[in-house]
């Protein structure tokens, strides 16, 4: 049911773990539903004043798809400009993973929501 890429990210998740003193933190999902995602970002401005995601990490409670989407998202946005990162859509994540089963599409949505929450948190500081 899962693509090899999903399984690979699930087995070897990148960028996981709690981050001390993040610039932005987002938490979405609900343990009752079986998915909780926490996203931590560190943001720095480059020479031209663009906001760059210098570091990112996640903690995820959930199924293999939830873990894989978290992992792959961090890879997609790390070192990227914040504006660009916010344009990553759930379908982009699914595509990056070679597809997700229909019942698991909500996981990729959760990942984009977590990112949005982390960015909102960063902006509100």
């Amino acid at each position: 049911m899962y693509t090899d890429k999903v399984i690979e990210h699930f087995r070897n998740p990148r960028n996981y773990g709690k981050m001390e003193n993040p610039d932005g933190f987002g938490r979405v999902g609900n343990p009752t539903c079986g998915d909780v995602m926490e996203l931590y970002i560190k943001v720095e401005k480059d020479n031209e004043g663009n906001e760059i995601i210098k570091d990112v990490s996640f903690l995820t409670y959930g199924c293999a798809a939830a873990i894989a989407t978290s992992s792959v998202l961090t890879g997609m946005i790390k070192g990227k400009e914040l504006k660009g990162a916010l344009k990553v859509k759930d379908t982009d994540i699914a595509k990056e993973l070679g597809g997700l089963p229909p019942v698991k599409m909500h996981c990729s949505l959760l990942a984009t929501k977590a990112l949005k929450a982390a960015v909102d948190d960063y902006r509100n500081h």
Partner: protein
Amino acid sequence: MKIYMDHAATTPVDPKVIDAMKPFFSEKYGNASSLHQWGREAKEALEESRAKVAKFLGVKPSEIVFTSGGTESNNMVLKGTAFYALKKGKHIITTAIEHPSVISTANWLKSQGFDVTFLPVDKEGFVSAEELENSIRDDTILVSVMAANNEIGTIEPIEELGKIAHEHDVPFHTDAVQAFGKIPLNLENVDFLSASSHKIYGPKGVGLALLREGTKVEALLNGGGHEGKMRSGTENVAGIVGFAKAVELAEKDMQKEGERQAKLQACLIEGLSEITDSWLNGPRQNRLPNNINFSFKYIEGESLILRLDEKGIAASTGSACSSHELRPSHVLTAIGLTPEEAHGSLRLTLGKQNDEKQVDYVLENVKKVVSELRELSPLAKEVKPIDDKCFG
């Protein structure tokens, strides 16, 4: 290492069963309804199989109806009773922890105007006799309580429950799919029983319904009038012969194998209990000897299963993510677990091939994987890993 510990889901077919089936594919392939020698040969094998299974259950051969599996048997007994009793009453009593093939069937009957009571269970999964007694009404046409639960292994007091049903002249059905061939069953107060071949090292696609003499049910599959008019359709002779062989083997092994598995079970329960924030679901007494069901806080079952799968271990979970309906196990929630607690469940079910070495390997790896997933989990606190071995 490849370790299959999901025997409640299905079992490999025993090589002796395959040998028994073989001749019925390309040599003795007759239709058991045919008059000629091919047909008579098939008919004979069919009736020998029926006799074997009947002997094991201590019932008459004519009371055994072969079906395509446990699901069909459950549908047949519930719908068959309901449609037969249409004028007598419309109330059916079952429990909150039945297999979906009973629950969905009961719900379908509800949609057809029947009234269904789902008895609650206590925190170990036991149905209460008193509760049953209080639920029986004048228009109750059937009580259906499983012999043993497929998720948490609880062995229900069907003797006592059947007795109460009978005191009120209500027929009693038990879904024995998980208990059949694994523990002794007292069928004194049982009118209907369902069993399935693929849970006891027989082939998939075969099962049986015990319909006691004098009971009244309508057939679910109408047609040529096979199986004493109770189940039409060309008989799956090879499958039935295989099922009967599996029953024969189960009968021989049951006690010894039950005791052996109970030891492995005790070890798994002890070992897994060492994991922080975890607990056994279901009872310690009156539990199927092959069933272990644990909840681990902070992690989700599908991840757990797939990480164990990487290590070569086959297990199952009551997490929503593993089900068709995206709802956590109705059994785990019925014994009082929160959805979150149900998501973090692991079911290991033992079989003939499992041994002590495998149990050690499984313990070691469950501990490792639980730790790893907790490291990933935003819900987890500090958890220290434990890796004592149980054997050796």
